[in-house]
């Protein structure tokens, strides 16, 4: 008879066989047997956070920057409910997480026991799948399946809820079975006919564009390499969503910058006017499409996605291709090489007019802003940060709001997995704990959270985690004392009624840093900014950098809601040139 192990032992054996190195967690009554077992498994290191939401976001940062699933361990009741925001965030942005939660003993389930909640009920809509383990014999199989579901197909979070009595009970451990299913099931895959059709559309197009998203990143670093090859082989322009940044070099001439609500003028106009749109691993999110009825009206649309339900969800497409981005691009390149080895050159003439048009849009310089010698403009701060860190293989996380958009616009990424941001859910407080997770995965690399002062206060307690594990993360706060994006919308849409968007009584971030046992640095004017940033980079400890920026600055360009891509609102420079008066004003 096989050797019997306790539920807690089985959990760790599963984690070991899944090559898990780090768990982000917080102990409590219903997971104590698992915590007790931790000491017997030296290959797995536990990172103690200060709040379960922090554990979730840290695991997301770990997963996004390493390509491996993030593992979270929390207790029942409040432990589980606190992690719900992070699970939902991971679900929206397709990040593989495996969350293990404790539950009250089986016989107490349903009695409103201490720290009991319906964890699988609460997390059902924000996970790919979840399990309540009712029989110790199922435990190993369930945990292995959890990893499989989280990491295959379109990745996402899963949760395994383990009652305390199950953690004590004994059963034989079973190893993971190797199989090639997606989401625990088989999917229809694209075929060569789809690829041939795609290449036909590409050769017929005069105004093509690649619109790429987080799916390229999720497909693995090889997909990003292939994407570069594909762009080179075709000579087509390329734009990226927020989540896709880094899959293609941000400073390459083929790259039009980010598209969408705060995307560049050239990217959005190219999306609107193109005759062929090739969506690679993006999902036609509402921040991207603007008004759906007027979205890219003249184009044939191709959608490459691993998730069949992403196709035709928001926008009807002409050619759906279901498959892993890497496989589809690889097949496409192979076919081009075989059938049209000289595609880029022979096609150059055909799309040269298109590139000329794009060049004209580019000349608008839509990311420009009016700089100042007195106050630090937030865009300038991000630009300086970029210039001073671009040769260091830097990992950037962000919170949510104006600073996030400025980071996306002005920080140029040239590698995948270097950019961690909450796109779908838009979770303020994501960046700091995510930076913790990134630094755990890449201990020798420079990790910076470009933050806003409002967002970062939501999960500030995780500085304590960073200090405990000597994680030299840099929290670069663009401090304008406002919830900047809220303030911007109020200015544009609610007659400058800044209802509750100003934070009075902010903490002194330098003293706060000292209180946490890390380093605080403050920059107050543009002339000292570079020196202070260099001081931050030279500090081998966690730093909170309080960058006092212009309080009134707005994030441009922007597509006002309910408008199509070609009706963008540009920055103050352009507005001065084309003063909006009378009727035009109400359109703002």
């Amino acid at each position: 008879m096989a050797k019997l192990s306790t539920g807690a032992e089985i959990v760790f054996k599963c984690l070991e066989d899944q090559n898990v190195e780090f768990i982000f967690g917080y102990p409590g009554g219903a997971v104590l047997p698992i915590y007790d077992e931790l000491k017997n498994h030296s290959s797995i290191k536990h990172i103690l956070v200060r709040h379960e939401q922090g554990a979730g976001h840290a695991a997301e940062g770990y997963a996004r920057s390493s390509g491996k699933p993030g593992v979270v361990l929390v207790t029942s009741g409040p432990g589980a409910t606190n992690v719900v925001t992070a699970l939902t965030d991971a679900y929206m942005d397709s990040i593989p997480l495996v969350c293990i939660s404790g539950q009250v003993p089986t016989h107490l389930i349903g009695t409103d026991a201490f720290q009991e909640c319906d964890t699988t009920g609460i997390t059902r809509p924000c996970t790919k799948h979840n399990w309540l383990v009712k029989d110790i014999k199922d435990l190993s199989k369930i945990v292995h399946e959890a990893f499989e579901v989280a990491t295959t197909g379109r990745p996402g979070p899963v949760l395994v809820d383990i009652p305390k009595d199950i953690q004590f009970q004994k059963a034989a451990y079973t190893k993971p079975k190797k199989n090639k299913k997606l989401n625990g099931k088989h999917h229809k895959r694209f075929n060569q006919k789809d690829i041939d059709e795609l290449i036909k559309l590409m050769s017929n197009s005069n105004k093509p564009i690649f619109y790429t998203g987080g799916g390229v990143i999720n497909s693995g670093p090889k997909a990003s390499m292939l994407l570069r090859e594909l762009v080179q082989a075709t000579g087509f322009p390329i734009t990226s969503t927020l989540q896709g940044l880094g899959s293609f070099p941000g400073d390459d001439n083929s790259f039009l910058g980010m598209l969408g609500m705060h995307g560049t003028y050239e990217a959005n106009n190219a999306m609107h006017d193109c005759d062929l749109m090739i969506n690679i691993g993006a999902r036609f999110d509402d921040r991207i499409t603007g008004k759906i009825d007027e979205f890219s009206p003249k184009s044939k649309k191709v959608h490459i996605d691993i998730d069949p339900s992403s196709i035709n969800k928001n926008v009807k497409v002409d050619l759906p291709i279901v498959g892993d981005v890497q496989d589809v691009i690889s097949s496409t390149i192979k076919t081009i090489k075989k059938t049209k080895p000289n595609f880029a050159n022979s096609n150059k003439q055909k799309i040269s007019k298109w590139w000329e048009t794009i060049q004209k849009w580019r000349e608008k310089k839509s990311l420009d802003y009016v700089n100042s010698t007195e106050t630090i403009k937030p865009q300038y701060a991000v630009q300086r940060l970029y210039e001073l860190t671009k040769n260091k293989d830097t990992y950037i996380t962000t919170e949510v709001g104006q600073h996030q958009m400025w980071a996306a616009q002005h920080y140029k990424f040239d590698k995948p997995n270097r950019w961690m941001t909450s796109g779908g859910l838009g979770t303020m407080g994501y960046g700091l704990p995510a930076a913790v997770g990134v630094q755990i995965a890449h201990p020798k690399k420079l990790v910076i959270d470009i933050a806003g002062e409002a967002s970062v206060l939501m999960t500030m307690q995780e500085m304590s985690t960073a200090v405990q594990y000597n994680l030299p993360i840099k929290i670069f706060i663009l401090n304008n004392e406002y919830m900047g994006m809220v303030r911007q919308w109020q200015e544009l849409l609610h007659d400058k009624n800044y209802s509750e968007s100003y934070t009075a009584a902010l903490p002194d971030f330098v003293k706060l840093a000292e209180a946490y046992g890390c380093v605080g640095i403050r920059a107050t004017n543009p002339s000292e900014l570079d020196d202070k940033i260099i001081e931050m980079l030279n500090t081998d400890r966690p730093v909170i950098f309080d960058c006092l920026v212009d309080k009134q600055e707005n994030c441009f360009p922007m597509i006002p809601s309910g408008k199509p891509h070609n009706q963008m609102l540009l920055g103050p420079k352009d507005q001065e040139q084309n003063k909006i008066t009378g009727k035009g004003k109400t359109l703002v």
Partner: protein
Amino acid sequence: MSRSAYSTPGKKGKLDKHIIVVWVDNESGVLARVVGLFSGRGYNIESLAVAEVDAKLNISRITIVTTGTPQVIEQIKLQLKKLVPVHKVADFKREDKNVIFKEMALFKLVGNISKRNKALKACKKYNAVLLDKTSKSYVVQVTALRREIDTMSKNLKKLGLVSISRTGAVAMTRGAEVFK
């Protein structure tokens, strides 16, 4: 311009009635997953019928009547297929002549014998079975289409109908073919 960070709704498409049949693992919480998907994404459920159909393989068959634009119906199917315990999903248009749809209803009729017999006679077309009989009451089972049961239950009101219990629709294709 709308004073919202979100776009305004676009044109609404034509709504069709569909019957979605889902084969699932019969495990705890599976119905909640399916129903939660519908409520969470704002899809409509007109009726629902569910029962285990294969005790050995542990498979339940869920039949859902729903309405939606072609795009929404397509989403419903694709979203259902993503659920881990879902094995296969079939979709039939309500008008499809190749599919049989049936609902069952139990009518409790109370009143004098002539009224009750009149009611029973009215039910005859719909495979009426008299399941229970006392000096004051009948319980009658009928199997019919939804709108036929709707009409019946309206018409029987004056003939002593005091209580109705009815199932959701179940469906099966005609002929020897089995949905794979």
